[in-house]
């Protein structure tokens, strides 16, 4: 019988024959990294990752998964495997000290975006773009062109052409975000009720 609840209809069928078979592979989608710009003049920073079937869908889903609260004026997404990651260092050692300032001898020059991590456990922050012929050389170029003022513990670089940016005609997607305070916990004042409850339970 077909149930009115689609979740019940999705349950696996009961097997009749007695057989052992391989487990079906999971149809898991790939992941994409999401970068958000909270305000005009602030840099983009890494916000998290999500599952999506392609870059366009990743962009669409990222908008509500990562920017449905607080502040945002723009975002971009890139496939996780298109992010190149440097070594990670700690204490006073900057990871840029390990990067040789190799001179990029031509090759196919492409634009790369550079992201620095200034504090372990925090997010990578976008610091600018460089032109280079490989991710390694992009980091070397960043060492010369975008010297950091603080210790950097980890670098990410992404080819600019691998990124799905917010298009100019999509900039109004976040227009009404400041009105959506009802999505923040801070919009619900429970302090008085809590105090009253604590008084009563004394």
């Amino acid at each position, binding site marked *: 019988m077909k149930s009115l609840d*689609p979740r019940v209809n999705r349950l696996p069928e009961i097997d009749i024959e007695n057989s052992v078979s391989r487990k079906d592979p999971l149809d898991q989608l790939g992941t994409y990294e999401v970068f958000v710009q909270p305000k005009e003049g602030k840099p983009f920073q890494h916000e998290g990752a*999500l599952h999506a079937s392609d870059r366009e869908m990743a962009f*669409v*889903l990222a*908008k*509500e*998964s990562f920017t449905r609260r607080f502040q945002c004026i723009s975002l971009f997404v890139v496939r996780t495997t298109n992010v190149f990651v440097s070594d990670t260092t700690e204490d006073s050692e900057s990871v840029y000290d390990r990067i040789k300032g190799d001179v990029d001898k031509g090759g196919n020059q492409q634009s790369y975006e550079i992201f620095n991590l200034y504090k372990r456990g925090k997010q990578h922050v976008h610091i600018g773009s460089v032109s280079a012929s490989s991710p390694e050389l992009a980091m070397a170029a960043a060492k010369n062109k975008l010297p950091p003022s603080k210790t950097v513990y980890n670098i990410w670089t992404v080819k600019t052409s691998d990124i799905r940016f917010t298009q100019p005609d999509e900039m109004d997607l976040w*227009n009404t975000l400041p009105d959506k305070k009802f999505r923040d916990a801070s919009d619900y004042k429970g302090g008085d009720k809590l105090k009253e409850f604590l008084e009563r339970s004394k």
Partner: protein
Amino acid sequence: MSDALKELIYKIADDQFILGHRNSEWTGFGPMLEEDIAFSSMAQDKIGHSFALYTMLRELGEQDPDTVAFTRNANQFHNCIFVELPNGEYDFSLVRHFLFDTAEALRFEMLLNSSYEPLALLAKKIRGELRYHTIHANTFLKKLGSGTEESISRLQKSLDYSLPYAMGMFEPSPYESELISEGIFGGEEKLREQWTKKLRK
């Protein structure tokens, strides 16, 4: 003029209100977490739009938004049947979202030039939200419409089922000619033409 205006606002508000609730039934049951969040957010947007419209009605002498939204009898609602249909499977909800939000975006595009200023201002304000809704709907329709045999046939089946109901979105108001001549709204017929043209693309 006031009756014509109220009728129009009630119609738009009730469509959004009912479909917002229908779509919110997917919260927690969406096909994947990311889509669950996106679809729920858009459902919330719809309730937000209906709230703004019910607030507009309050200015025109109707009761307060909560009373209007939650205490009317079924026969006092002005929505089309399309938005009330039970959800069933996700493919239907997605197709309904696509058909409805394409029309909704066009409707508010027309209302940008409404002679009734509050409607024109609201249309301007929610433009970005509606743009997101249509980007979302188009992306999913394109992806699933060129996916597997199952995804294509499911979409087609839902589309065949939805289209006759979708025509109900464009039911003309009893005050249609007044709304058009007063410059409040360009009319359901014009909207349906634009919508059909858009879908063909």
